[in-house]
């Protein structure tokens, strides 16, 4: 394992896309890793100037410690290994993640996992807006992978996601799952306005009754969607996560929609 400790607090944005198992492994030695370029504001600098770096990347593991809330693009395009962060993290974490694991013991800013296509992200704290969402003007959000958030998320969660699984253990803001093309979102706290707006396919699983369901959704019965049990069991077994007991073996009210679009999506609301 290689350990990075933030030497002192950074005030300007630090563009640190070099922090990924792929790039560290490519660099090889601590010495060469320390010399990898980062942008601090507009200045090109070396990674070693910000972090105390020790250990070896041979086992594909990175641990970063410190307040990284101004550090952006950590784990960009990473395809393997484990990147663990103890502390809050800045925007664009795990952009384009293709594989491996990103674990955060702290909070995460906006644009988490933009363009992610595989791998796992686990966030112990809260996450900002536009997590797993498509970038402005892009047709697609994430296209794969599993994102587990133990806290709450902001607005526009999973916008236009094409594939993948997102679990939020607390609340989600407005427009959660808007424009979803496919994939699955679990929101285990409250959900904001217009969940699933313009979704085509895919599933939004809600533990709590939303304040409203868009009129372009249709009530479609109550049933036991067995895949929910399967997901719970699978995710709990394979990842550090625990779903509310109420969800287990439960029945759901189903709304199909959004009929402004294809209408093959569903919002499942857990029944008491």
């Amino acid at each position, binding site marked *: 394992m290689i350990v990075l400790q933030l030497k002192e607090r950074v005030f300007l944005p630090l563009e640190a896309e070099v922090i990924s198992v792929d790039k560290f492994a490519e660099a090889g030695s601590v010495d060469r890793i320390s010399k990898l370029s980062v942008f601090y504001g507009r200045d090109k600098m070396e990674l070693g100037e910000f972090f105390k770096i020790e250990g070896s990347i041979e086992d594909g593991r990175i641990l970063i410690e410190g307040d990284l809330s101004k550090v952006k693009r950590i784990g960009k395009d990473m395809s393997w290994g484990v990147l663990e962060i103890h502390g809050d993290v800045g925007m664009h974490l795990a952009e384009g993640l293709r594989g491996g694991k990103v674990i955060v013991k702290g909070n995460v800013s906006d644009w988490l996992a933009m363009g992610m296509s595989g791998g796992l992200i686990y966030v112990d704290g809260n996450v900002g807006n536009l997590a797993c969402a498509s970038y402005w003007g892009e047709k697609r959000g994430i296209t794969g992978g599993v994102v587990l958030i133990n806290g709450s998320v902001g607005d526009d969660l999973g916008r236009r996601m094409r594939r993948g699984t997102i679990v939020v253990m607390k609340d989600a803001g407005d427009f959660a799952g808007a424009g979803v093309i496919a994939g699955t979102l679990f929101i285990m706290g409250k959900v904001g306005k217009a969940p699933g707006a313009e979704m085509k396919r895919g599933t939004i699983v809600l533990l709590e009754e939303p304040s409203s369901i868009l009129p372009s959704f249709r009530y479609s*019965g109550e049933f036991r*969607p067995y895949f929910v049990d399967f997901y719970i069991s699978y995710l709990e077994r394979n990842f550090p996560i625990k779903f509310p007991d109420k969800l287990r073996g439960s*029945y759901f009210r189903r709304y199909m929609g959004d009929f402004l679009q294809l209408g093959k999506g569903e919002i499942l609301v857990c029944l008491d």
Partner: protein
Amino acid sequence: MSFKMDKIKDTFAEAFKMYGARIIITAVSEKWALESARSFTGFATSVIACGCEAGIERTLSPEETPDGRPGVSVLIFAMSRKGLEDQLLRRIGQCVLTCPTTACFNGLESEEVLSIGKSIRFFGDGYQMSKLLDGKRYWRIPVMEGEFLMEESYGVKKAIGGGNILILGESVDAVLRAAEKAVEASRKVKDVILPFPGGIVRSGSKVGSKYKFLKASTNTDFVPQLRAHTSGDLPKGVKSVLEIVFDGFSLEAVKEAMRLAIEAAVEVEGVIQISAGNYGGNLGQYNIYLRELWEGS
């Protein structure tokens, strides 16, 4: 009856003409008779994909079998005599002939018979011997264990397939519990079997599909989560539906089994309605109206 008729939908089950036979498998112990019978009746849930529908009718005490050993009676149904013959040949040949200590007897007196033993005897490679006892022909087919004894001819007669009930309820647990009770109750009826695993079907089907290549697909009207796509005929609160299918030698037996099944299921907590599957009444030869099952009783 003690239950309320209004829980039983005023509809009918649509059943079809089939051909059926009864095979009696005996062995040194009930265990081995059952091993053979289970193999025989496996993969036999619907004629279209399995070639036949089959099930264990009941276990037989030594006093009830032709050779005084423990036995199992098995019913098998197909759409034609030819189909039934083919399946009997395969299933006796693969699941009874092969099974330690078994013997195989006809369990259905009928004027029309299929001479299955006449074909299976050839397995004896010329060393088989026939025996005629009290008017019935048997084949002794030499096998490594010693010999396999089977009756030559098996009665075949017209039968009824596809009698059914649907159990609609407020949870999977409730309808499963009700269906299990229904299965237990209806298994008391002679001449009837329930061809699906454990007697219950959870995937009833309708004729046709959106896909041209598919003859049958999920019974949309009874799938509780598809209300957005149906007429909405499913009673309020229904969250799960299970079906029981009945095949039997007579309309009376099928009706009796359905009646007992409904009586057992309808009183289970969480059951909302008992209904039945039909295709409008024009496809099958028999329309069995649920509410008429108690007429005259």
